[in-house]
């Protein structure tokens, strides 16, 4: 006689045993509320972080739990901060390593919203090292960690400031500079203003003429920074001038781009220049194209263009990084006349050594005014000049005051006030 094997019963038993083991394991390793013997942090104070004017931070302080350095075989190793909008479940947002550190800043909050805060003391078995998860730093991965949670406190609101008094100096300088530019604009509309000759810019027209005579194209590169960079904007104004000349002489201009938005704007600029020159049909949009936004991928492609198309003139205008020397050296090798302009001070030495003419720093910004003579751009350039005069005068006055203050201590408070005003 054979008895039927009680499969269902055994399966149920096995499942129950597995569930039991799982619960035991979870119980052993979970970071949960600690027994009563583990004291929690007390005297929790929360206030708006005064250093932060955006209203996204709260500063929290607490008192170290009394007599908590060592409880049974557990040692107090740090704290975990919980936060949530009032009425919602609190979640860990910050961990603090070290029993002695009793303050933290909770970030990325919304200004004006109400938050509740809770602080837990984290105890580890003696000999266990503090460790947190690499991806989620608020998760404690040290084995056997237990937490003693304080009562939730709050609600508290991070407050955003409408005006940051610490940055009044920035506002004062911006307003002063704006006023100077407006005054210069007023005068620039009435009469021509003098700008000293800049050799690199005088050479631009020669370079265009050379390309036309040789029947070869010109290459224009507007750097590797994006559309919002001042150097890129300055380079586009220069491109407008070069494109107008190129259109007048019907000399092709190649503009490889590493940013799609820059390409879009440069197409507009070149198209407009061809229209202004009365040759809209000669405009070839395919000459202004996107390559890639990878720095050296772009560089290798432009190098290839230089050696295959053999442009007679290369213009490097804008912000450049490590590719500056590679581009300028390849252009030099092909025998092109090269004019560079950048405000990247680390790359200027390479352009100076490998190019025929280099516009250094502010000369790049001056170029657009110099070439166009537009009253608005002239006013900006003059405004910068007068700003520099004020800056130099301020520096000389400051150094004089600092030096006199060494021998006349009664002037020291004035010097301290000046330094404090410059403080960001």
């Amino acid at each position, binding site marked *: 006689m054979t008895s039927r094997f009680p499969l269902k019963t055994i399966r149920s038993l096995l499942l129950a045993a597995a569930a039991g083991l799982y619960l035991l394991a979870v119980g052993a390793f979970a970071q949960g509320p600690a027994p009563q013997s583990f004291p929690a942090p007390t005297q929790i104070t929360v206030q708006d972080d005064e250093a932060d004017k955006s209203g996204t931070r709260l500063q929290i302080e607490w008192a170290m739990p009394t007599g908590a350095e060592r409880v049974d075989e557990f040692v107090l190793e740090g704290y975990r901060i919980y936060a949530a909008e009032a009425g919602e479940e609190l979640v860990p947002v910050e961990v603090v390593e070290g029993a002695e550190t009793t303050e933290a800043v909770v970030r990325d909050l919304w200004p004006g919203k109400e938050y509740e805060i809770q602080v837990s003391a984290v105890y580890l078995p003696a000999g266990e090292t503090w460790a947190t998860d690499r991806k989620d730093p608020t998760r404690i991965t040290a084995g056997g960690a237990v937490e003693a949670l304080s009562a939730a406190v709050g609600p508290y609101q991070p407050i955003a400031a409408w005006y940051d008094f610490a940055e009044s100096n920035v506002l004062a300088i911006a307003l002063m500079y704006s006023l100077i530019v407006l005054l210069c604009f007023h005068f620039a509309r009435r009469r021509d203003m003098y700008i000293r000759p800049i050799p690199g810019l005088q050479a631009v027209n020669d370079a265009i003429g050379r390309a036309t005579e040789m029947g070869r194209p010109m290459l224009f590169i507007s750097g590797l920074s994006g559309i919002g960079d001042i150097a890129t904007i300055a380079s586009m104004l220069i491109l407008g001038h070069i494109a107008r000349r190129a259109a007048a002489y019907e000399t092709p201009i190649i503009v490889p781009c590493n940013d799609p938005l820059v390409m879009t704007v440069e197409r507009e600029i070149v198209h407009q220049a061809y229209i202004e020159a009365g040759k809209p049909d000669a405009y070839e949009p395919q000459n202004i194209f996107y390559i890639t936004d990878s720095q*050296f991928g772009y560089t290798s492609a432009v190098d290839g263009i230089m050696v295959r198309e053999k442009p007679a003139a290369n213009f490097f205008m804008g912000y450049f990084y490590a590719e500056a020397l590679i581009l300028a050296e390849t252009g030099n090798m092909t025998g092109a006349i090269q004019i560079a302009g950048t405000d990247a001070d680390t790359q200027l030495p390479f352009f100076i050594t490998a190019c025929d003419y280099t516009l250094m720093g502010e000369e790049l910004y001056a170029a657009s005014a110099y070439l166009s003579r537009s009253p608005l751009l002239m006013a900006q350039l003059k405004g910068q000049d007068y700003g520099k005069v004020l800056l130099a005068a301020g520096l000389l006055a400051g150094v004089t005051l600092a*030096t006199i203050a060494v021998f006349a201590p009664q002037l020291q408070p004035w010097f301290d006030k000046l330094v404090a005003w410059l403080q960001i």
Partner: protein
Amino acid sequence: MPGPTGPITGILGLSTEVIGIWLAALLTLAIYSFLYGDNPVYKVAEHIFVGISAAYGAALTYHLVIIRRLFDPLFRPDLAQPPLDVPKLSLIIPGLLGLLIFSRFIPRYDWLSRWPIAFIMGLYAGLSIPRTIQTNILKQMQATIAPVLPVDAGGQYLFFSGFENLLLIVGVVCTLAYFYFSLPHRGVMGGLSRVGIWFLMIGFGAGFGNTVMARISLLIGRIQFLLYEWLPTIGIHLGSGPGAG
């Protein structure tokens, strides 16, 4: 069947590591072949480089920007990082601005593409003005203003410190004079700007040397890769390399 610690085979029985080393070595040599002149090998490497980087950039933008920053918070808020309870409707505005860029494909409405560009340029200008004033004017002024006759606590004159401060202020004022465009560089202005250009060139020389040194170390890294990682795969062993312990 090899276990988890067994060799990982790639193509033609070669391990993926060896294939990787060969690809890197051949592409390195292909790019260096440009030193000889433009050639088909360089062209192949250049096109691979451009193609892969452009495609990688597009894929990265699609996943990290379009999906993660726009699509998920708008249409799958539970999958957004961090998860959201409700769709983040404010993202409709940047999403629409982004879509306007595509108006360039319709000549009649291509003027609409100027809106997002104007927005970006305005935003960057607004963000960069206070930052530029803080870092390029205030911080620099603060660092430049120092006594040219400093004394220590005992009243002793600090010669070198004073000389450094004097050099700093002279350098700054003369360099500013070089970048002054409203007067011709003649007379006093010419003298000041000439001193300024000397300061600039000394600075550029130091920068040049520093950067060339860094580039040489990059070249050394590539040569070491070829000598100590690639050559051993074809049975040529030149030692364990300078980095080996």
